[in-house]
């Protein structure tokens, strides 16, 4: 007998060991359940992380814009309208009013991790006879690259943005027949012109975007777009990506800006992510329930099988509390041991599936994400499930009348 184990643990371990086949089967059942949870959770987390990485590293999580310009009806006098019908005005590209103050307010928010003022506008890029209308993003590289990981998407050249540089999409480069080091003539609608050197080519994973995207330094873009000192958007990243919409609403309510979160602008994608999470939660719940019922069923049978032993134990001075704990420990042990085997099975299944499931280009479908927290969480969940499942049989065992139990 192990001197470090208390009475209840010694009894529980021996009872489980004696009912070997029963114990092996139920641990097998728990292991499969836990393996499903580990496999599903790790795979979905990997897929989700992949999707989120793709979406959120190529666009800001929250974007602040100047509010819509609206036309107001003319008034003759108090409460009297000249003409109630007003036409929506065309939206001029204007700067966010007092943007430095708003940006510094954003930086002071604890849930905000990065803030970058940006200017967006349409320009024409010309190289020789080829010209394309594109979107020019004027950015401060130090802060902007924390939000949109442009350096990660560079396929040629480098993520350098001095006042003379421009980074363009690979499709645009193809259309213009240009490459890194070539000069581009950039013309704004106002007639302003700058000659910029291509410092890098980016591939954001979307052909349409790659045909239109151009990055220049903030001041270069400001001067080209005729908005010296102005910015059209403030891009933000936050600590909890799923809280982006709620934070955006708070920002909008407190400032004269329009705040769009990635959740709002990628509603379909976000719904898919939510659906995945809900499915995973449901699977965990049902697997957990079936594991709990399995443990409870085995322990109920065990209480019946052990009723004479329980009677003898009670006769020799074992308290009801001790009997209760003997069965609770059995439930907890079954859950815990099952979770260990299940975690190993889940990891094997995941590694195997990871090696099989590939994208069309041969790259991995999802990154292999085996976080320690998943295993700790699963072991805890299985152990608590085991304890809860053992509650009813344990109470039944503790309540057994020793006279009836011994008589059998």
């Amino acid at each position, binding site marked *: 007998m192990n001197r470090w184990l208390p*009475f209840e643990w010694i009894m529980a371990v021996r009872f489980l060991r004696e009912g070997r086949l029963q114990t092996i089967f139920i641990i097998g059942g728990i292991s499969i359940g836990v393996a499903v949870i580990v496999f599903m959770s790790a795979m979905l987390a990997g897929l989700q992380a992949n999707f989120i990485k793709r979406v959120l590293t190529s666009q800001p999580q929250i974007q602040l814009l100047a509010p819509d310009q609206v036309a107001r009806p003319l008034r003759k006098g108090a409460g009297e309208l000249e003409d109630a019908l007003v036409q929506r005005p065309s939206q001029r590209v204007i700067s966010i009013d007092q943007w430095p103050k708003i940006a510094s307010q954003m930086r002071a928010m604890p849930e905000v991790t990065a803030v970058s003022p940006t200017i967006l506008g349409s320009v024409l890029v010309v190289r020789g006879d080829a010209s394309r209308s594109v979107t020019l993003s004027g950015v401060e590289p130090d802060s902007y690259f924390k939000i949109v990981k442009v350096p990660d998407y560079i396929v040629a050249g480098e993520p350098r943005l001095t006042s003379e540089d421009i980074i363009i999409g690979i499709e645009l480069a193809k259309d213009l027949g240009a490459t890194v080091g070539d000069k581009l003539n950039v013309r704004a609608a106002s007639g302003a012109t700058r000659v910029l050197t291509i410092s890098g080519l980016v591939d954001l994973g979307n052909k349409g975007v790659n045909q239109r995207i151009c990055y220049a330094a903030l001041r270069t873009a400001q001067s080209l777009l005729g908005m010296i000192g102005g910015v059209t958007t403030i891009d933000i990243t936050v600590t909890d990506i799923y809280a982006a919409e709620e934070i955006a609403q708070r920002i909008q309510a407190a400032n004269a800006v329009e705040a769009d979160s990635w959740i709002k602008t990628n509603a379909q994608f976000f719904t898919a992510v939510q659906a995945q999470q809900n499915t995973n939660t449901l699977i965990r719940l049902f697997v957990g329930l079936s594991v709990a019922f399995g443990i409870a069923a085995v322990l109920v049978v065990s209480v019946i099988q052990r009723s004479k032993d329980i009677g003898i134990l009670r006769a020799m*001075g074992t308290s009801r509390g001790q009997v209760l704990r003997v069965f609770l420990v059995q439930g907890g042990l079954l859950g815990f041991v099952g979770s260990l085997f299940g975690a190993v099975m889940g990891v094997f299944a995941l590694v195997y599936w990871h090696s099989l499931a590939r994208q069309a280009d041969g790259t991995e479908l999802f990154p292999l994400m085996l976080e320690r927290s998943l295993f700790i969480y699963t072991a805890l969940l299985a152990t608590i499930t085991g304890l809860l499942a053992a509650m009813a049989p344990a109470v039944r065992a503790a309540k057994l009348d020793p006279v009836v139990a011994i008589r059998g």
Partner: protein
Amino acid sequence: MANREEDASQKASEILKLERVCKAYNVGLPTETEVLHDIDLKLDHGEFLALMGPSGSGKSTLLNIVGLLDRPTSGRLLIKGRDTAALGDAEITRLRGHTIGFVFQYHLLISAFTARENVMMPMLADRGFPSAEIEARANRLLGQVGLEKFAGNLANNMSGGQQQRVAVARALAMNPDLVLADEPTGNLDTRSADAVFELMRQVNRDSGTSFLLVTHNMDLARRCDRIIEVVDGRIRA
């Protein structure tokens, strides 16, 4: 004064006293059945008492009440002079564990454990953790019942007589004042039955532990200090 001293010493020598104990089942229902009627019984320290009676006479019910496994419907049960009526479940369990040892006819030992571990069990339940002291006492008790060589054997790998001797050792583990034995030899052959009885008698003589032995065997009963007969839930004088 002399009478009072005599009374006190008499009380101190009493391990067990039943006063007008009745036991009924289905109380308050039309099927109410009284199985024990006004039982008065006294057992002194060191006494070896045989309890006899036909099947269904109430012997086992009486033994369960004396063993604090069941409670009387009315009357008083005093263990070492202490009235048990007011005690709660936890106190009853503790009193039973420390004062009374049991030897049953069937289901003698817990099969998942060895002979030594079975003997250690009551001490383990009381102390919470195993210790060298507990193990040494179990070995000593097994030696006392002549089974030191079988200490590591699983209960299922022992004969009925051996199991019953281990059960006697287990009943003595907590050094109880009283051992209740419910037909401990009823399932054994004559030789084993005699050996188990002699073992209990020896313990009784050596340590002064009281025994209340339920038996159908008249030969064994005659070798006890006193015989009590229960017939139809009453003690026949």
